């Protein structure tokens, strides 16, 4: 958001050299001269401070310091320790990409209030003008009122509507004319202007009209009502528009304001703008993570739903990445900052969504071409309407009829609906996607998703978890799994190997169904490349590969031997376990199908999509997984380099292909496909090759992405259809084309209801917010 160069002052940069720096702090809480000298001393004694002077009257401290020894936060801590406060003026907007531009919001709020006031004035006056204009319907009343007096009264009431409420239209139209461009405002200005000027002439010089054999009718009610109705449309439009960008505002609002940083062994709350990569930040339960980093100490479960759309908290411990704006649930931890500002995942998401909202959909091209010539053509049509009515209507009525229809044509035409049809739906759709963890790169990706008929899934990491899990657990005769698993888990809990984690998870899952006591392991030894061993409940427990058992002279029973061979044939990794020198169990470990895959694939199929799987596995394994998840067509033994070729193969069959992959290894295939969906798993947001990035790492994200894209494009089509039909029907009716057949004429006041047509388009787009994936 670099749109305000005036405020783009750089944030205090990281310490670079030993050159001293000077900073001014605003001190709060100093009441007397002794206070100021106390602060001065406290600052001067702080290591790194070269000189400090405090001005009591100005409540300011000027500090010269060595930037490599202390920084702003350190100075602030010193002042606070002395018992005073440092006043922090709001950071300039540009120093923080995510800071919502409050000034802009403020201006918008004021503009809106102004608009509302102008609308209210117009409504009140129109409500008075309307019945006064209809006095002629009561001849008894009319007899008592003089016509000229009434007309002058109406003129006085209409003037504020014109000059205050409707001023914007005339100014804007005039500015446009000077540039030889025409807009919506031109139509309103010409339409209401013509009605007003005619009425003005009839009021000032009724004799002239009567001499021409015309009744000097006035149209003040038309003028006032049109302006009031158009302003009503604008008020509603402005409210609805604010909602279209609500999702992105909510994303920006997620950011934390401060972070608890460790500075010189002390915990200091510093504004987010002052946090630097390398800082250590503390996070307590219930707090928001300030920025992106890596956990150094502690463990916790984090709610990452705001970034990934995944509703279950994610367990994190030392070495895991944490992301700004996520919420820490249970434990406390300390992390090292790796990214700040524009480089954080949240900032990248915001940027991506903003870019997508600024992109233009190919489907809009026709609407664009039309709106470019729309207004001048409507003006020409309106003049033609005037000419035809004047030429064909009966002598006494031709001028009023020509005028009324001329105004109706100008007022009913609505280029706004045409212009709003696509962008509003895209804004709502992309914003909504982001809140579901579906990041849509641009409007073109949305449109492509609508056309897709085939989804190609890379098995590993999409259908399956891409992490090992125990799939089979076979015990020797006479050994109970329920008794054995706690022992094995006790050993493996101490190990850091991924296979060990698989065993622990399996044991925990089993224990949940039949709870038993947890055992403690002592004398833990990790046997590099072979496994691990420890003493649990007084027994020596070993778990690892075959070599571990052989080295300990432990022999497998024939039953286990046979089972191991079977597991190996199924491409499983086999773990061997021994207790007290006897082989007791085998565990088959493999990449497993995600719980959500089966349901997700069924949902994709029920959306009418053909789901195809590809994998590097052999035909037998591939077939087994495919059958398990309900896929009938698959490619097995696909080399990584051939993935793009498979996409091409499907395209050659005339299919529009969406490819789902992990974004790194699958980049060429993603780029080759008509639509690439990258499963980010919350790590890399801006994946170049992908049209859509999924923050959630399961297939449910694909279902959401496809359904949301389709719904958004459907909304765009509805909007465009409505806008086209509205204008192509409305203009001829307003011109009086139906009059010869049905006697219908459209009152210009009714035509002003067109202001509501853009509101209907907006409302239709906002309906998207109720989007839900059907289960």
């Amino acid at each position, binding site marked *: 958001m*670099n*749109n*305000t*160069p005036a405020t783009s002052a750089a944030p205090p940069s990281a310490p670079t050299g030993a050159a001293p720096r000077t900073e001014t702090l605003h001190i709060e809480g100093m009441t007397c001269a002794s206070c100021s000298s106390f602060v001065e001393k406290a600052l001067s004694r702080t290591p790194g401070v070269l000189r400090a002077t405090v001005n009591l009257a100005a409540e300011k401290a000027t500090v010269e310091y060595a930037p490599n020894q202390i920084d702003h936060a350190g100075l602030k801590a010193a002042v606070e320790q002395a018992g005073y406060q440092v006043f922090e003026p709001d950071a300039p907007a540009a120093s923080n990409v995510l800071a919502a531009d409050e*000034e*802009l919001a403020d*201006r*918008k709020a004021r*503009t809106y209030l102004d608009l509302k006031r102008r609308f209210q004035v117009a409504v009140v006056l129109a409500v008075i003008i309307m019945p006064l204009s209809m006095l002629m319907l009561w001849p008894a009343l009319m007899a008592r009122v003089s016509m000229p007096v009434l007309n002058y009264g109406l003129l006085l009431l209409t003037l504020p509507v014109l000059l205050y409420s409707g001023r*914007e*239209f005339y*100014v*804007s*139209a*005039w*500015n*446009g*004319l*000077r*540039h*030889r*461009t*025409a*807009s*919506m*405002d031109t139509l309103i200005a010409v339409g209401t202007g013509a009605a007003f000027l005619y009425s003005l002439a009839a009021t000032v010089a009724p004799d002239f009209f009567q001499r021409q054999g015309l009744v000097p009718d006035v149209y003040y009610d038309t003028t006032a009502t049109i302006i009031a109705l158009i302003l009503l449309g*604008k008020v509603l439009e402005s409210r609805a528009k604010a909602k279209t960008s609500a999702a992105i505002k909510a994303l920006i609002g997620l950011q934390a304001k401060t972070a608890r940083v460790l500075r010189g062994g002390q915990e200091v709350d510093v504004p987010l703008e002052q946090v630097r990569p390398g800082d250590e930040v503390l996070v307590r339960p219930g707090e928001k993570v300030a920025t992106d980093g890596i956990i150094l100490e502690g463990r916790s479960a984090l709610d990452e739903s705001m970034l990934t759309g995944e509703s279950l908290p994610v367990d994190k411990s030392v070495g895991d990445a944490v992301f700004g704006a996520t919420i820490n649930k249970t434990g406390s931890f300390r992390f090292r900052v790796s990214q700040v500002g524009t480089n954080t995942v949240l900032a990248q998401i915001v940027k991506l969504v*903003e*870019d*997508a*909202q*600024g*992109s*233009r959909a190919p489907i809009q091209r026709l*609407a*664009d071409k039309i*709106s*470019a*010539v*729309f*207004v*001048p053509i409507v*003006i*020409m049509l309106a*003049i*033609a309407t*005037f*000419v035809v009515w*004047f*030429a064909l209507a009966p*002598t006494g009525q*031709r001028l009023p009829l*020509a005028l009324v229809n001329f105004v109706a044509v100008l007022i009913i035409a609505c*280029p*706004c609906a*045409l*212009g*709003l049809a696509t*962008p509003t739906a895209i804004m709502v759709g992309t914003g909504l996607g982001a809140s579901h963890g579906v990041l849509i790169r*641009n409007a073109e990706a949305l449109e492509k998703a609508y056309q897709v008929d085939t989804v190609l899934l890379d098995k590993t990491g999409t259908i399956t978890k891409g992490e090992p899990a125990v799939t089979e657990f076979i015990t020797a005769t006479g050994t109970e799994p329920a008794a054995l698993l706690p022992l094995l888990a006790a050993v493996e809990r101490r190990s850091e190997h991924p296979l060990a984690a698989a065993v622990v998870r399996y044991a925990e899952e089993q224990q949940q169904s039949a709870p038993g006591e947890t055992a403690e392991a002592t004398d833990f030894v990790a046997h590099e490349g072979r496994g691990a061993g420890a003493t649990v409940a007084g027994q020596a427990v070993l778990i690892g590969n075959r070599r571990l058992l052989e080295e300990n002279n432990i022999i497998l029973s024939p039953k286990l031997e046979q089972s191991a061979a079977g597991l190996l044939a199924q491409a499983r990794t086999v773990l061997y376990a021994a207790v007290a020198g006897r082989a007791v169990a085998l565990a088959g470990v493999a990449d497993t199908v995600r719980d959500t895959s089966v349901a997700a694939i069924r949902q994709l199929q029920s959306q009418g999509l053909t789901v195809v799987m590809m994998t590097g596995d052999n035909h037998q394994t591939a077939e087994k997984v495919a059958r398990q998840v309900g896929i009938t067509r698959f490619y097995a033994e696909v080399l990584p380099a051939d993935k793009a070729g498979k996409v091409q193969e499907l395209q050659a069959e005339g299919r529009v292909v969406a490819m789902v992959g992990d974004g790194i290894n699958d980049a060429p295939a993603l780029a080759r496909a008509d639509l690439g969906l990258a499963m980010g798993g919350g790590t890399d947001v801006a994946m170049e090759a992908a049209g859509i990035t999924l923050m959630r790492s399961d297939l449910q994200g694909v279902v959401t992405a496809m359904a949301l894209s389709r719904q958004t494009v459907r909304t765009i089509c509805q909007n465009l259809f409505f806008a086209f039909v509205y204008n192509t029907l409305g203009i001829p009716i307003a011109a009086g084309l139906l009059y010869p057949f049905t006697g219908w004429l459209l009152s210009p006041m009714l035509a002003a209801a067109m202001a509501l047509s853009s509101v209907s388009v907006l409302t239709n787009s906002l309906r998207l917010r109720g989007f839900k994936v059907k289960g």
Partner: protein
Amino acid sequence: MDTSQIIVTLLGTGLIGFVGWFFFAAPHRVATAVAGNGGLQQVTIQVKGGYSPDVVEVALGQPVQLHFYRDEAAGCSEELLLPDFGIRRELPAFQTTTVELRPDKAGTYPFTCGMGMLRGSLIVR
């Protein structure tokens, strides 16, 4: 057909022709960006019922700063769209809003108001 009808018909036809000529044959106001320090090309565009200049020429591969000064409060021009660069900006009234981009492909890229009424183009060569 009486005299007044003939006059209205002739005037009307003439007016239709004039409206067509006035809006569709409007000359473009062209400006070529001046490259400053580090090749940064800057152009100031006034937004008031239209864009002036409405055709901006810039050189390929060099960073571009377009300074849009919105000299009106009328609703139509409050949004600026540069779809080929994924830019959608709100232009606060009576303020300058700077849009930065780096064109890496020659061509003509339109910029419009939020509803596509006001238009201009960025020519990259």
